[in-house]
């Protein structure tokens, strides 16, 4: 058998292995070849062709053959692109509600936000490792309740969930408005769209963070559930 013949058969077996859904058995390969000598020569040629020079590998799996990408190349292709995206408004609000109202069910979150939560929103928070299921509410349907995780405390630089400022503190920062008039309401509606005011708020919050968070927090340390006592709307 000359080199041309080997090439001829090598081409057939190459295409056969490539196009077969499952690894191809020796038996099937031999069916396409005139004799054992050709089998040996063809497989040797294929090994050469799909050797270290190639990004592909001729793999033996039991008595079967397959062509697969080599591991080093596959890793290369599966490059991980990391990108950062700000959390969506919906996710942010959901996270905030979970943080302040935990343990809280999905239905309760929706009630507070006034809109339903898309699956994706919870998924993102779960994926970020910021929330976790906490148990089940002892109400009909036994809905899962959600709370924040250690990852949440870590990310937001909190030692304890009670470190979150309560509503009164939020009011002092201006994040939560008090003594509202119609114009205040209109303005806070604007805020939803217009983040230009945010800088101003930031300043106030910074004051708060330095002044109050660091010094004065202990007052609502006790009373796990009490720190939100002023939030009467809560179910």
């Amino acid at each position: 058998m000359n080199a041309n013949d080997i090439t001829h058969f090598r081409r057939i077996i190459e295409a056969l292995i490539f196009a077969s859904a499952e690894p191809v058995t020796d038996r099937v390969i031999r069916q396409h070849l005139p004799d054992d000598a050709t089998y040996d020569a063809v497989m040797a040629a294929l090994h050469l062709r799909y050797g270290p020079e190639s990004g592909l590998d001729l793999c033996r799996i039991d008595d079967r053959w397959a062509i697969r990408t080599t591991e080093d190349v596959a890793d290369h292709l599966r490059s991980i692109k990391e990108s950062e995206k700000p959390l969506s408004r919906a996710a942010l609000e959901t996270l905030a509600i979970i943080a302040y109202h935990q343990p809280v069910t999905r239905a309760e979150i929706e009630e507070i936000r006034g809109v339903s939560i898309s699956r994706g929103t919870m998924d993102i928070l779960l994926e970020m490792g910021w929330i976790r299921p906490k148990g089940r509410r002892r109400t009909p349907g036994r809905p899962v309740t959600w709370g924040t995780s250690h990852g949440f405390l870590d990310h937001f630089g909190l030692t304890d969930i009670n470190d979150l400022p309560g509503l009164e503190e939020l009011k002092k920062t201006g994040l939560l408005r008090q003594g509202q008039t119609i114009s205040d309401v209109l303005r806070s509606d604007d805020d939803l769209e217009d983040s230009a005011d945010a800088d101003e708020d930031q300043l106030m919050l910074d004051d708060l963070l330095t002044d109050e968070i660091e010094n004065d927090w202990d007052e609502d340390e006790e009373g796990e559930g009490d720190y939100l006592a002023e939030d009467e709307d809560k179910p």
Partner: protein
Amino acid sequence: MNEPFEEQLSAKEARQSGQLSLFLVLDGYEGPIDLLLDLARDQKIDLAQIAILPLAEQYLAYINSARDLDIDIAADYLVMAAWLAYLKSRLLLPDPEPEEQMEALDMAEALKRQLLRLEAMRKASQELMALPRLGIKRFSGARPERFDSVSVVSHTATLYDLLQAYGQIANREEASTLTISASHLYSVEEAVARLGELIKYAKGWNNLLSFLPPNLKTSLDRRSALASHFTASLEMVRDGQARLRQDNHFGPIYLVATEQKS
């Protein structure tokens, strides 16, 4: 490999074999152009050389024999027949108007073109199917691996974002409470009723302000009461129940009931 073409052949054979199966034959054609094309192929191998007049005659004869057999013929075949009959008459009887004669030739040309074009597309479809097609003559790798670079999106949020979001939720809740309190604004109806009662007991001209309810706490309450009482007073003047007086710009407004003499 192309069953559909075999179908067409059998339709053609049926047509040639006689009229009994005419109905089936028409059914086997995809419209009048298809039938014309089939008739034209009988006439000439090279469709470019086709003579439209005999083709029209063949078509008409064919449709007529179907009619004689009382076969239901779809409307588009009949429309085509009518059109071909018209074309035939125009081609046969040279028109005194050379312009109209030209039009008939144009029509014949258009028909020929249509036949050629469909024929070309038939041929093209066969050539397409004869190409080395994937899954027939060529094969793709059957064990695809996926390397979509996994893009890991990590979401960022600061404590400030979180607090702000919560603040806004809380704000929204307060806003909804406030909507209810807004309904406590002094309505004009209330003011009309109140003013209508009070004015009966008032003697002479009185400052409009003196009619305002006493328990107005906020400036908003006050302003709304003033506005609605002023509107109410205007309504009463319109209805002839009261008269209004203002001595100078921005000065106090005085009100008096009409039955009374000032």
